[in-house]
C-alpha cells in the first residue's frame, strides 16, 4: 500500500511489527499497542524511531506519557465505515498536543482524505494506488469548512465575521 506523507507518495521507512514477531533492535518500527505498553520505557530507548499501532477501541489517553517520544502513532480504520479513529486523532492532536506523525491505516480511500487531514492525520497508508496519486488534487476539492478543528483552517463562521469587519472598516 502506498504511503502519502506531506502530500507526496514516499517510501515507508517503518517496519510494521506483527503481534508475534521479534521487535527489531534497530531501525524504524511500528509496534502493536499491547506490546508497546508492556514495556514502553525500554522500547522508547531503541536505536531508531519508534511508533505505535493503536487500535480504535483503546483510549488514546493511555499514550499521553509517551507522546513526546513517539515518532509515529498509527490509527486504524478496519473498515472505512468505522469512524472511531477520527475522534482518537483529534484527541491526540488537540487535547494531548501530539506533534509527531499521525498515520491513517487500514481502509483509507481518497474520499476520506479531506476529513482525515482536518482531524489531524498527516500521513496515509492508502488502499489504492490511484487514490494515492490523486492525493494532491483531492485535498484541494474543498475550500469551505464549517467546523473549527486543530488543523487551523478558518471556519465559515469566522470567515464571514472577517468579511463583515472588513466591510465595516471600509
Amino acid at each position, binding site marked *: 500500500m502506498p504511503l502519502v506523507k506531506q502530500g507526496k507518495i514516499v517510501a515507508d521507512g517503518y517496519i510494521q511489527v506483527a503481534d508475534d514477531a521479534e521487535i527489531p533492535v534497530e531501525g524504524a518500527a511500528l509496534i502493536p499497542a499491547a506490546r508497546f505498553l508492556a514495556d514502553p520505557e525500554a522500547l522508547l530507548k531503541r536505536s531508531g524511531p519508534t511508533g505505535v499501532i493503536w487500535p480504535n477501541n483503546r483510549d488514546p489517553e493511555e499514550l499521553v506519557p509517551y507522546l513526546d517520544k513517539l515518532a509515529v502513532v498509527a490509527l486504524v480504520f478496519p473498515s472505512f465505515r468505522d469512524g472511531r479513529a477520527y475522534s482518537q486523532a483529534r484527541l491526540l492532536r488537540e487535547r494531548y498536543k501530539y506533534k509527531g506523525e499521525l498515520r491513517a491505516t487500514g481502509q483509507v480511500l481518497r*474520499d476520506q482524505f479531506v*476529513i482525515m487531514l482536518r482531524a489531524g492525520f498527516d500521513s496515509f497508508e492508502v488502499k489504492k494506488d490511484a487514490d494515492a496519486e490523486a492525493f494532491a488534487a483531492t485535498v484541494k476539492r474543498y475550500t469551505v469548512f464549517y467546523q473549527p478543528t486543530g488543523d487551523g483552517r478558518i471556519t465559515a463562521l469566522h470567515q464571514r465575521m472577517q468579511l463583515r469587519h472588513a466591510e465595516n472598516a471600509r
Partner: protein
Amino acid sequence: MYAYDEIDRTLINERVSEFRDQVKRRLAGELTEDEFKMLRLMNGVYLQLHAYMFRVAIPYGTLSSPQLRKMAHVARRYDRGYGHFTTRQNIQFNWIKLADLPDALEDLASVGIHAMQTSGNCTRNVTTDQWAGVAPGEVEDPRIWAELLRQYSTMHPEFSFLPRKFKIAITASAYDRAAIKVHDIGLRIHKNEAGETGFEVLVGGGLGRTPFIGRVIKPFVHGRDILSYVESILRVYNQYGRRDNIYKARIKILVHELGIEKFAAEVEDEWLATRDSALTLDSEVVEDIRSRFSYPHYQKLSDTPDELTAASADPHFARWLKNSVAPHQRTGYAIVTLSLKPVGGPPGDATADQMDAVADLADKYSFGEIRVGHEQNLALPSVARRDLPALWRQLDKLGLATPNVNLVTDIIACPGLDYCSLANTRSIPIAQELTRRFANNDLAELIGRLHINISGCINACGHHHVGHIGILGVEKNGEEFFQITIGGRADEHAVVGTLIGPAVPFAEVADVIEDIVEAYLALRARPDELFVQTVERLGVEPFKERVYATR
C-alpha cells in the same frame, strides 16, 4: 428565510463536483458498490425496489418559492413528475437514474438546495417546528439554532462515520411539533432566569425496532455552549456506540445500556474539556446568522376582515378555516396548512404541477415562503386573513384543501413495499383505504384529533409507535399482516403505544380501525376527550375486546 451566502454556495458546489467524480468512478468500476454505498448515501441516494431514490434536504422545513419550483423541475426532468414529502423535512424522488444525479444536484444547488447527509451514519437534516418564526408564543425562532447546527454538522471531520445515523430536532414552542422526544438529540429552547437563551437537552429517543422516549440529560445548556455540548455527546457516542450490531448501534441503545446517569457523566467529563474552545458561539456570530434570516414586512391588518366574514357563510370554506388555518404571531395573519392527504391519495405526495402552483400561491399570498412539516403536509406560514377565501378557492382546485389536518385521514405513512427494499408490507394502500372509509368530513370532525401512523416494517419510518393508532406491517408466511398499537403520541407527552393483540391480515385492517374508532366514540367521556385521552383513561382492554370479540 435564511439566505445562503457565497461561502455556503461554494461548499454546496464543491460537494456536487465531488459527487460527480464519485459517480463517474463508480460507473467506471474504480469504486466498488461497497465503497460507493456510504458515499452515495451521504448524498441522499438510496437504492429501492425499482430504482434509485433521491432524498433532498429541506433544512428546518423552510422553502422559498424558487426552491420549490426547482423541486418541481427535478421531479419533471429526472423523475416521474412527483415528489414525496417525508417525516423529517425532506423530499424524495423515487425513480431517478444514478447517471442523472449529479445534474439534478447541480440544478438544486443553483437555488441553495442540497442532499448532503440526508442518509448515512452521520448527523442528518436538523429539523424543527414547521411554524418556526410565526407560531404564537414561541420562545424564539428555532431556525437560527437549526442553521448553526446544520453548519456545524455538515461534513464534520470527526462524525461522518458514526456507529449509525444521528437525528437532531429543535422546538421552541410549548406544543412540540418537531417530535423532539423521539430524536437522538432533542432540544427544547427556553430561557434561564437571566433571560438568556438555552436548551433543555434530551438524548436517546428514537423509534425503530427498539423504541425509546428521549431522556433529559441536561436541563439548561446555554446557547453559546450548544455546539460544544452536542460535540461532547457525539464524541462519547462515536467512541462507545456499538458497531457490532446495526440494530443496536443507535445512541438510544448506548444510553439505555449505560444508564442515563452514567452516560450523562461521560458527556459532562468530555464537555469540561471541550466547552471553552473555538466551538463557543459568541453573540456576534449568532447575531450574524440571525441577521441572514429575513422576515416578511407585515402590514397592519385586521383579524376579522370583511372578506373573511362574508366567505364564512360558505360551510365548505368555514370547515376548512376551522381545520387548516391556525393563529399567527401577527394580527391579521394566519398560518395555513396544505393537506397532502387527499382521499384515496398516497400521503405526502405532491405532483410537479402542484409544487409549481403552491410556489405561485406562496408568492402571491405568503411572502414567497413555504413550510414542510413532519406530518407530511405543507404550510403557507404568513397569509393575510383577508386573503384566506381567495387562497382557499385556489387550493381547493389544486386538491390541497382537504379539511383533514390532524384528523383521522391525516395519515403519516412510510413508502412501504410499493417502493422500499426494506419493507415487509405495503403501507400506502392501507392509508388510501382508511382515507376512503373516513372520507365523510362530518364523521372525521366528530372523531376529532386522531393521528394514524403506518410503517411497512420494524424500522418504523411511519413512526407507528407514536401514532395515536399505530399500524405496523409484518410478514407471515408470505402474507401481509399488521400489528395495531394504540395510545402512542409524538408530542411533548410522547409515549410509545400499546399492542392490542394478534396481527390482522391486509384486508381486515380498515375494518379493525373502524371498530377501534367506533369503540372510542362510544367510550369517550365527553365530546372533547381525544382518542388518546380515552385510551389513557381506560387502557387498551375495551378496544381489544371490541376488535377481537368477533374475530
